[in-house]
């Protein structure tokens, strides 16, 4: 029972974790709540549905490429022009809400509003137990992306630049960093991570047009619970959120899942606005 709870936490938390890390990474260079990140997740899941019914490496990579391209295009043709005209974070948020709505209706028109399942139920044998291959992959990719991004952000020149923009965008720009180029690169990386999560979650739990918003929402909550200051917060925040949800489902019933997630989120913001792991209090 407890083991099952932990495994479920790991699966769900890894799905949230990928999205939370992608959101956090994008937020670090472009600080507004970008709702089209959710569209990228949904588009990836539906792209997987369109291209192939079974989970193969050949299915994942084209979709990840599409997602990265979409994320880049949104940045280049929507947000950058608005940022150049000195749009405030609120304006960008509302514009992204509008774009998200457009994506959701396009998906609904193309594929219908009904739930679609995907995948051939491939299993993997782990020595002591079997589990669906896709769930195993979600967990592996979550850890791999976390490790990869941590190394990238702390041990590469590009990573240092990204962190510099995160700390003080205006200053980074002033000493000659090409902040626009950095934002573009981050949007491509973010898009790839979101694409990966979209494909995997699509194969695991199926898809509906509203999935992007719901998943992104959980990702944002996870990142905020984790403290919004670094990647580690997003990673562990996602696991914590998934654990609380699973305990709630086990203790009450599955329909209270969302309520519990948001109740935890709001309690957290009220009691510890700085997140679980941080000591310093932000305003």
């Amino acid at each position, binding site marked *: 029972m407890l083991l099952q709870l932990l495994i479920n936490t790991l699966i769900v938390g890894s799905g949230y974790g990928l999205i939370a890390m992608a959101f956090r990474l994008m937020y670090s260079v472009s600080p507004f709540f970008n709702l089209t990140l959710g569209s990228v997740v949904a588009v990836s899941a539906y792209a997987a549905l369109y291209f192939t019914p079974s989970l193969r490496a050949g299915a994942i990579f084209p979709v990840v490429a599409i997602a990265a391209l979409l994320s880049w295009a949104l940045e280049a043709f929507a947000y950058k022009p608005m940022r150049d005209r000195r749009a405030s974070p609120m304006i960008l948020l*509302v*514009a992204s809400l*509008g774009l*998200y709505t457009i994506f959701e*209706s396009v998906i609904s028109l193309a594929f219908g509003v009904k739930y679609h399942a995907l995948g051939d139920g491939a299993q993997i044998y782990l020595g002591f137990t079997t589990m669906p291959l896709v769930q195993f992959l979600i967990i592996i990719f979550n850890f791999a992306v976390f490790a990869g991004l941590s190394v990238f952000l702390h041990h590469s020149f590009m990573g240092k630049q990204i962190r510099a923009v995160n700390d003080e965008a205006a200053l980074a720009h002033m000493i000659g960093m090409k902040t626009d180029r950095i934002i573009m690169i981050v949007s491509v990386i973010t898009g790839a991570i979101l694409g990966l999560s979209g494909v995997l979650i699509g194969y695991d739990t199926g898809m509906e047009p509203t999935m992007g918003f719901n998943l992104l929402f959980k990702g944002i*909550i996870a990142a905020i619970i984790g403290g919004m200051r670094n990647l580690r917060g997003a990673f562990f925040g996602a696991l914590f959120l998934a654990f609380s949800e699973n305990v709630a489902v086990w203790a009450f019933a599955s329909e209270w899942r969302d309520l519990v997630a948001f109740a935890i989120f709001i309690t957290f913001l009220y009691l510890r606005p700085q997140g679980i792991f941080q000591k310093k209090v932000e305003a």
Partner: protein
Amino acid sequence: MEYLLNLGIIFCIYSILALSLNMVVGMSGLLSLAQAAFYGIGAYATALCMTGLGLDFFSTILIGMVINAVIAYMVGKILSRFKGDYYAIVSAGLSIIVFSVLLNWKSLTNGPLGVFGIDKPSVGGFSFSSNASFFLLCLVFVAMVYVIYYAIDKSAFSRCLKAIREDEELAGSFGYSTKRFKSIIFVLSAMLSGVAGALFATYIAFIDPSTFQLKEGIFLFTIIIVGGLSSAWGSVVGAVILISLPEALRFLGLPYETAAQLQQMIYGAMLVLMMVLRPQGLFGKYRM
């Protein structure tokens, strides 16, 4: 004629909602997506008190307003600590919580099946059962809310809110308790949207939780973005524009599902266009 009256009643209900939301978003610069929650609570308060307890319409409005005030006060205590995008995300979370309660607290709200058989309002033997009389009743309420909005807008209270909107820290350093101001306007706005909920419930005679989702909150938000932030007139115009649009689409004769998605797409495009071309909205006085 009946069709136009029906449309008029819907205009009125959404005008009340837009006016009350504009107090929070336009006047105070707080990006609230929780308005549908208070709309829903108002509607359920009226529906349940009228069908279950047999109370009369006008007292149920008061009950709904009181419940909304209490909830908004408690919620406002939390919300008032935030601003900007955090305010938006937390208020969206609250909207989802209220929807979840309406949907899942089956013993009280009858869950997804909803509440039906809600009577039309009546006073002293006269029942507002014809569309014409109901429309007049709605107009009276819109006029009242409009006057309330106008009165607040011209008061010293709203000048403080606008100061908070422009620079919360500066307003705070002048000694204004910014959290209290934010909380008061949130409570007022929640009470007024409860009135819209009560009118909706008695007009349609049947309510279920699906009307009061976050999507509705975003729709209301779109209305005031298009109509104009911090403008009473803009709220009403926005409501008229965004309600008429799907009615116009209806004449194209598209299948229901396609029309619904097309409508969403147009709302989305309107939000983006407004943000690019005129972030304060058609008649707005405040630019985010």
